[in-house]
């Protein structure tokens, strides 16, 4: 049951409903859902297709700029603006994906990183369009259908609705034939290609979806903070999205929301206590890589399975548990 997508959707709904109860800041709550989308999109590439993209910040930044430019300079309504961000995100992701998937493994990672730097300097250089270092200021949260989004919690529920819709669609995608084909490519690309799947087209399609969703998240983020900052298209933006993805765990999409949420809450708490909290983050990343390779979700899975075997009072089948973790490596 723990790996059932319907269950993951229920968990997402519960999270959306519970965030306002536990968080005082509507900004943080909205940010969790917005990054949740971006991280799920990154996960679609990393967890489902096996592509480690260091370029997710490109799409996030592009989305922010779409919101900034269309809302401040052209007064385009929000739904149309979000649509434009989706399309532009997909188009740029197709370009970046098409060029990057020419190489594999580490080379692919470096290519995506290179593109992320390229787009950063593009945004930095053409400051007439993007505001350069300052970004685009005064991005409004206009009134939509009678709802006043200047109130942060109202805006949260708007973000939540968009989040749940997109999250459901992404869950559906991962369960479709398309999603299963992506997993086949992740597991064994040569075989998937030999069976006759156009592997490259599938990878580019995964990029397109990922780019579209990430750009949507970027647009929502610019509306949330009222600025389309240069930092959204920076190396750090890509880095943070990737870190959240790995911390959450790359096996399923709810893990991404978990990763985004725990990162942002911890960052919020720690940065208030100690300005050098990134030192702890660095340490945490090393610990995750050494001891928690399946991320927070992997940790939850292990807990659930050990609780389960506790109630069953019978030892778990050796083959299964040794494949799951290092705990009974001694027996093997």
């Amino acid at each position, binding site marked *: 049951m723990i790996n059932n997508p319907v269950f993951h959707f229920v968990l997402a709904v519960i999270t959306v409903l519970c965030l306002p109860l536990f968080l005082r800041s509507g900004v943080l709550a909205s940010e969790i859902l917005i990054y949740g989308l971006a991280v799920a999109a990154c996960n679609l590439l990393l967890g489902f297709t096996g592509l480690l993209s260091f370029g997710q910040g490109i799409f996030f930044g592009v989305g922010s700029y779409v919101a900034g430019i269309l809302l401040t300079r052209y007064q385009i309504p929000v739904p149309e603006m979000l649509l434009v961000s989706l399309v532009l995100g997909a188009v740029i992701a197709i370009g970046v994906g098409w060029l990057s998937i020419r190489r594999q493994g580490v080379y692919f990672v470096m290519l995506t990183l*290179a593109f992320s730097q*390229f787009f950063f300097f593009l945004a*930095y250089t053409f400051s007439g369009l993007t505001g350069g270092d300052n970004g685009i200021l005064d991005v409004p949260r206009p009134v939509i259908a009678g709802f006043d989004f200047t109130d942060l919690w109202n805006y949260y529920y708007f973000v939540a609705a968009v989040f749940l819709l997109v999250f459901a669609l992404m869950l559906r995608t991962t369960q479709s034939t398309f999603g299963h084909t992506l997993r086949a490519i992740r597991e064994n690309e040569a075989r998937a290609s030999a069976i006759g799947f156009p592997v490259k087209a599938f990878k580019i399609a995964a990029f397109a979806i990922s780019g579209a969703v990430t750009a949507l998240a970027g647009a929502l983020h610019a509306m949330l903070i009222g600025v389309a900052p240069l930092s959204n298209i920076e190396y750090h933006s890509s880095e943070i999205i990737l870190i959240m993805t*790995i911390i959450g765990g790359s096996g399923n999409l709810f893990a991404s929301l978990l990763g985004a949420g725990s990162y942002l809450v911890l960052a919020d708490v720690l940065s208030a206590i100690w300005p050098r909290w*990134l030192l702890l983050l*660095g340490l945490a990343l090393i610990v995750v890589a050494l001891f928690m390779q399946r991320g927070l979700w992997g940790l939850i899975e292990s807990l659930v399975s050990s609780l389960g075997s506790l109630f069953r009072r019978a030892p778990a089948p050796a083959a299964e548990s040794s494949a799951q973790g290092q705990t009974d490596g001694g027996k093997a």
Partner: protein
Amino acid sequence: MTYLFQILNGIGLGMLYFLLAVGLSVIFGLLQFVNFAHGAFYLLGAYFTYDLVERGVSFWVAMPVAAVLVTLIAAATEIVLLRRIYKLPHTFHILVTVGLALMIQELAIIAWGPLGGNVPAPEAFNGVIIIGNFVYPEYRLFVIVFTAILAGALWWVLEGTRVGAVVRAGSESAENTALLGYNTLRINSAVFGLGAGLAGLAGALAAPIRGVEPFMGLEALGIAFIVVVIGGMGSYTGALLAGILVGVTQSVMASLWPEGARLMIYLGMALVIVTMPRGLLGRA
């Protein structure tokens, strides 16, 4: 004449880029390991130099001491941490080295403050050379000559000595090298340490030119990646060629279209990747 000047400047910059990137390239060739902490070692080299010079130590002592310290720290890191993760997927190489880079950056801020500082050029080279209408700092000329000698020495070590032969053999097949009786674990630590030490040396040499600040490591990492991608991963000559190419492009562009200088470098890299996916001199 203007261009000659810019090209000279670019070569100076390019030699530093080479020094910065060659370690990353060789480490990748030998260990198939992408080191996102490479820029952090450059940062450490620069800050150690800054710290020692601030304490009144001569630059000529501070520079080699900084490079040796970085080498030792990097080798220790390899022994304690990194060799445990080589067998993991690349995702975790990246995660660990990104974490390491963050820790080094934050420790530098704790130790030396968030603002950075300047390192004066050593007295013997703090003048300028005047050629016609152009003024060129002596220190930059020193950097060009010094790194050229170093690059030659490095080439000789890698191509002309037994140590270099073992390192190259290790990049071809770690297993066969081990079977021949070489302690590959020790070679790995040494190469990792020296590769990072070269980045530290680049940082030490760059400190009098560009000063020190806590985020210089990130910028250096970006440059090192470009140089390695353009030159071809694991290739010494590739790193040299690409380093100079990037340096000259950046320097010439800086006089033509200053805002777009960086953009052109990344555009150039994209072009190389599309037309020559293995880089200029990368092996298959």
